[in-house]
């Protein structure tokens, strides 16, 4: 069930926005005609395979590829020696940055392997079986080193060091000794010690979360054609074609003008398909094999072992409130696993942890820590879920100690327009209080929950959202349709949510827009589909291009009616002059007689992305014998800004909840004491399936973002933030035990129940 609670004064003026048209790519997707990376077949194509490390931490003493090269059917073998030497320097890449040396070493290990599954060599052969057999013939001599797998152990002085030159960075000040702590960050406001002195109630707890994977359906894949003239074409599954082009150019030291990236349809990404893994390797293999195209596809085991999951973490939170329930002070320490190279999302975790609340005294420390696990990648609101799990659990305990309803406590302390975040900036118009009110007044929260071993939990959540760079190009067709090119890969239905914003501006149906996801040679620079940015930023580019188109078409109408431009009006897709009128389609059919084609393009980089807030409610029943947690009912409430395509917003919310439930109850990377991943299949890495979840109800609260022409806020990320906290709070209400370790597996729940029994 979806409920829509709008505070948008313009909600009734839209003709297209807010409706649910048929999605443009629907038929291709449901009939299997959509082309994914693994569908690529090219004449003379070779197939690739990777050799990966069986060790979590080892020095590479030698690599002998001679037997593989001599194996029948093999056309090329590459190792890190085929990668150009790059400096340890930072390259700007859209939303973030990469250290070129780390990125290169992650593509193929040079001196050391730093995690189980670390790529070492690539092979291209006449088929995938031959390639795999040849890869197994590559002889690597290792000096095996002790691995470090626990974030707190990795922070100790006597821990094995992953990167010899690593010193802790504190805003440009380097530490004096080698350390796995790549960086220490801090945010501070007010006087936290005095704040705790003023508190009537204080709760201090530790929390642990495991490394988890995005779990996208489609494994990574890439095909490359390196031509003799140096021109390169790459077909791949990526969230951002321009980002792939930049990374491959930097890693291989090739000008970007030599590289064309064609993004294929994508079977999910959730942040995990921003960084490159296979793309530079298949380019090298194509060049070395005599310029034949080479395709490589990961297995599910490769995906789990060697692509970027998100950080496991240790978070300690202390919060105090006065007798009236006002938060007096808050303190947190967050230590996030970065995996093999620096770059965990601990900064984002620090930004998220207290963001929903108005707190005058706070101190947050964050640590980015290397461990012998895969280099972490973004995962839907990266870093936020770990942080909110800790804070929202402590909030629940505080409200209980104060005898307050958990939503009333949050409403009393919730942030609103004009309040200052702990890290400094002041909020514009936000909708957290409206979201909390909607949750508190929802049919779910008003209903009684009865029965033994049952409990109800709630939690809130915040996510920044992001703007970024987007471009769009359009041309008017003579049949009244408009072709729309964007560089935004369509993951969650953004072809349609973007096309609807163009259709709204032109006063024509969404079905009259023909949206195409273009390659890097066909449209202006566009950042990837991440950061909940595509409907917001690419939608804005499309809004701008629509305005240009309208101006050009008004001129054409003036030409047809042989009058001045200022005499022409445009209303709801109709051009008007005196008592004459012409539809958009009628004018489109007369472009030839008024000057020829009409095209337009626009590029934007908006800054006011508008934060998103959520409040979730969940009812559970816990089996006291087995510890299994059954979800009985779930409601997700969210400030969605203006919901362009409400069905998509709902599905984003439901998808975020499903992933958050997996993170909370089942999913975790399991390593043996040598750092070998022991659950690298979906049989053993337990993601939720349909039977694990009830229908997830949604309530859309529409508080328009003042920083967007249609009021759009990103919606895709914040729904993964509250579920773990909401679930452990529900388990507490059901059984009286507070789970501070994720996932709260049946075994861990039983262990806590046994401890409770004494």
């Amino acid at each position: 069930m979806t409920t829509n609670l709008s505070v948008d004064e313009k909600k009734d003026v839209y003709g297209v926005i807010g409706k649910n048209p048929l999605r443009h790519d629907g038929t291709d997707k449901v009939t299997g005609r959509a082309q994914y990376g693994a569908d690529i077949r090219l004449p003379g194509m070779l197939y690739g395979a990777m050799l990966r490390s069986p060790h979590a931490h080892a020095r590479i003493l030698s690599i002998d590829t001679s037997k593989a090269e001599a194996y029948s059917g093999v056309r090329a073998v590459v190792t890190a020696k085929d990668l150009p030497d790059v400096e340890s320097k930072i390259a700007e890449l859209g939303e973030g940055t990469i250290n070129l040396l780390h990125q290169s070493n992650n593509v193929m290990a040079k001196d050391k392997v730093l995690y189980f599954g670390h790529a070492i060599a690539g092979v291209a052969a006449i088929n995938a079986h031959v390639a795999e057999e040849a890869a197994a013939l590559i002889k690597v001599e290792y000096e095996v080193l002790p691995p470090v797998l626990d974030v707190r152990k990795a922070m100790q002085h006597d821990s094995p060091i992953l990167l010899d030159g690593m010193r802790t960075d504190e805003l440009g000040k380097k530490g004096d000794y080698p350390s796995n702590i790549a960086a220490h960050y801090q945010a501070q406001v007010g006087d936290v010690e005095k704040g705790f002195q003023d508190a009537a109630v204080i709760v201090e707890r530790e929390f642990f979360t495991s490394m988890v994977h995005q779990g996208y359906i489609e494994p990574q894949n890439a095909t490359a054609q390196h031509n003799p003239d140096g021109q390169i074409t790459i077909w791949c599954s990526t969230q951002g074609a321009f980002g792939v082009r930049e990374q491959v150019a930097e890693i291989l030291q090739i000008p970007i003008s030599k590289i064309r990236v064609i993004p294929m349809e994508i079977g999910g990404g959730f942040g995990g398909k921003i960084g490159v893994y296979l793309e530079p390797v298949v380019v090298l293999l194509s060049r070395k094999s005599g310029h034949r195209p080479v395709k490589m596809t990961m297995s599910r085991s490769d995906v789990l072992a060697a692509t970027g999951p998100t950080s496991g973490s240790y978070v300690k939170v202390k919060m105090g409130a006065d007798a009236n329930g006002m938060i007096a002070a808050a303190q947190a320490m967050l230590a996030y696993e970065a995996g093999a190279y620096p770059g965990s999302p601990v900064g984002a975790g620090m930004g998220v942890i207290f963001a929903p609340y108005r707190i005058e005294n706070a101190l947050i420390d964050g640590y980015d820590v290397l461990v012998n696990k895969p280099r972490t990648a973004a995962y839907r609101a990266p870093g936020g879920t770990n942080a909110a799990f800790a804070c929202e659990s402590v909030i629940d305990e505080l409200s209980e100690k104060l005898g307050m309803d958990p939503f009333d406590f949050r409403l009393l302390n919730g942030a609103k327009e004009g309040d200052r975040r702990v890290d400094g900036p002041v909020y514009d118009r936000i909708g957290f209080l409206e979201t909390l009110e909607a949750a508190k007044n929802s049919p779910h929260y008003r209903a009684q929950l009865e029965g033994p071993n049952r409990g109800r939990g709630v939690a809130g959540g915040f996510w920044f959202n992001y703007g970024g760079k987007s471009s769009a190009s359009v041309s008017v067709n003579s049949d009244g349709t408009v072709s729309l090119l964007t560089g935004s890969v369509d993951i969650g239905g953004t072809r349609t949510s973007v096309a609807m914003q163009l259709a709204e501006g032109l006063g024509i149906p969404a079905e009259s827009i023909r949206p195409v996801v273009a390659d890097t040679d066909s449209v202006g620079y566009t950042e990837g589909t991440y950061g909940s940015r595509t409907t917001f930023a690419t939608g804005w580019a499309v809004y701008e291009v629509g305005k240009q188109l309208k101006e050009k078409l008004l001129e054409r109408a003036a030409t047809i009616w042989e009058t001045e431009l200022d005499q022409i009006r445009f209303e709801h897709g109709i051009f008007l002059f005196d008592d004459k009128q012409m539809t958009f389609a009628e004018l489109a059919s007369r472009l030839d007689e008024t000057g020829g084609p009409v095209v337009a393009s626009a590029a934007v980089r908006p800054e006011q992305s508008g934060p998103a807030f959520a409040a979730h409610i969940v009812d559970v029943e816990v089996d006291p014998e087995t510890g299994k947690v059954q979800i009985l009912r779930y409601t997700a409430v969210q400030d969605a800004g203006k919901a362009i395509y409400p069905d998509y917003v709902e599905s984003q919310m439901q998808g975020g909840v499903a992933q958050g439930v997996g993170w909370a109850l089942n999913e975790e990377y399991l390593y043996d004491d040598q750092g070998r991943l022991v659950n690298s299949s979906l049989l053993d890495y337990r993601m939720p399936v349909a039977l694990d979840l009830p229908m997830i109800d949604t309530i859309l609260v529409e508080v328009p973002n003042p920083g967007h022409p249609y009021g759009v806020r990103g919606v895709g990320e914040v729904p993964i933030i509250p579920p773990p906290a909401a679930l452990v709070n529900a388990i507490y209400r059901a059984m009286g035990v507070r789970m501070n370790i994720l996932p709260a597996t049946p075994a861990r729940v039983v262990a806590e129940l046994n401890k409770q029994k004494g």
Partner: protein
Amino acid sequence: MPIVWIPSLLRDLTNGQKSLSIKGDTVRQVIENLEREYPGIKERLCDGDHMRPSISIVVDGHTSTLKLRHRLHESSEVHFVISISGGKS
């Protein structure tokens, strides 16, 4: 004058001051003027001619895309916050 909020890890350079009124028409000028009064702070915020990648400039509540070139007005509020990008080094 624009108000600049000093990151807590750099407050040892500003005698513990949390925020300062500093002249400057752009973020770059503000940092240059900060450096004159509090030597060493520019090197902690910038890497050569760029902001350190781990720091985002937030002006009047919004993350700046123009960064050091961002133009300020008399009542601007400048924050140096931790970048939110995740999973990339």
